[in-house]
């Protein structure tokens, strides 16, 4: 990242806007020269032939790494700006008084735009329950929030196109809505740890007033944080993906990850559970696997399992959920993901 020197006589607020405008222009220019630059590096600078495996793998790598990192920075910035409008407190008051059904739909959608980290899952859960939001609606939120992950959406968009990214968001929403409704109907309130029902708020929080400059600065901070955390996974993932792209014969995987293998969907879901938090590195590999005959439903199920079914989150949620409810929570999501996987294998 290059630091831009802006004359210091311009007022601070205007300087922020100027920086945003300059970065946007820089972003657009960079995004448009990625492809010619990658071809130039692989085929001219390294002097490899366009037919050679190594040449193709290198061109793939030098194109995808900057493209994904640019998309990631840009999208995380925009999403973070949107998220400054949806504090968890705000979401809670939006969901208050919503019945099941409509509430599940709202809960799942708000799960995408509300800032969420699994370390905050417990206070959030207690806050929702304490405000009288139905358990099923709370779960719709808790399922959608981590499953529809912005990094995954950006990587799917960059590597598979907008259709697959859209399908991923849509099926994540459906899973969250339906699983939340099922949990709501199971009437499992007694399996919430007792102390949760006894919490009463002592003080009220005033909603913080945020200016646009603050929103932009906050968004910039989260871009640095998120991209700083995942860039290495992206690079390694794309390197492995590039290797597969160049060297593994087409259709090599059709037999194990294709539509014909009925067990591939549940196997993909099981495999995804322990792989939490490496979504950034896994998606490029998966994208290369798909070129070699893996089917889309299997791949989507795998990714949702990687992102949505996380053991660390289960451990955290155990603090507020008794075992039967925790198991019901995980089992419902797992079954929903498997069904989604079969559905896409069948439709497409």
């Amino acid at each position: 990242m290059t630091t831009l020197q802006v004359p210091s006589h311009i007022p601070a607020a205007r300087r922020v806007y100027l920086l945003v405008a300059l970065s946007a222009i820089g972003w657009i220019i960079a995004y448009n020269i990625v492809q010619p630059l990658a071809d130039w590096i692989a085929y001219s600078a390294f002097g490899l032939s366009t037919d050679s495996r190594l040449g193709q793998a290198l061109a793939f790598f030098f194109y995808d790494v900057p493209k994904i990192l640019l998309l990631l920075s840009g999208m995380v910035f925009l999403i973070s700006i949107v998220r400054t409008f949806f504090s968890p407190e705000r979401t809670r008051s939006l969901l208050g008084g919503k019945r099941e059904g409509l509430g599940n739909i709202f809960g799942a959608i708000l799960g995408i735009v509300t800032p969420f980290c699994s370390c905050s899952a417990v206070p959030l859960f207690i806050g929702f329950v304490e405000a009288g939001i139905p358990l099923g609606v709370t779960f719709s939120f808790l399922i959608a929030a981590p499953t529809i992950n912005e990094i995954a959406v950006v990587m799917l968009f960059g590597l598979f196109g907008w259709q697959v990214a859209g399908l991923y968001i849509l099926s994540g929403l459906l899973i969250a809505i339906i699983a939340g409704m099922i949990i709501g109907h199971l009437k499992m309130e007694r399996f919430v740890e007792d102390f949760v029902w006894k919490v009463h708020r002592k003080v009220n929080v005033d909603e913080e007033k945020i200016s646009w400059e603050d929103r932009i600065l906050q968004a910039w901070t989260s871009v640095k944080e998120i991209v700083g955390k995942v860039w290495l996974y992206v690079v390694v993932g794309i390197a492995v993906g590039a290797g597969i792209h160049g060297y593994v014969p087409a259709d090599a995987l059709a037999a194990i990850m294709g539509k014909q293998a009925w067990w591939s969907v549940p196997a993909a879901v099981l495999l995804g559970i322990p792989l939490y938090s490496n979504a950034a590195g896994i998606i490029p590999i998966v994208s290369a696997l798909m070129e070699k005959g893996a089917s889309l439903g299997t791949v989507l199920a795998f990714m949702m399992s990687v992102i949505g079914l996380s053991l660390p989150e289960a451990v955290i949620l155990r603090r507020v959920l008794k075992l039967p409810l925790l198991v019901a929570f995980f089992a419902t999501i797992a079954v929903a993901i498997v069904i989604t996987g079969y559905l896409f294998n069948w439709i497409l």
Partner: protein
Amino acid sequence: MITIKVLGSGCANCKKLEALAHQAAESMNLQAEFIKVTDYAEMMQYNIMSTPGLVVNEKLVSAGRVPSVAEISTWLADAEMAS
């Protein structure tokens, strides 16, 4: 004497917040007592929805983010003026 509570279950951001609060108090030469709140039931009395949270003299001043040292210093100065 100011009481500073850091609410959080021990995630990376909670530790960062605690370090920054220490830094702010030290640079202002404040007598401050630091308390780490890791119990969820106690944490929820402050009505927070996302961690880490910062409480100065029983008043929740920030939640769900790591504020800057400058921001923390203003809150500490306010608390000292009030007491």
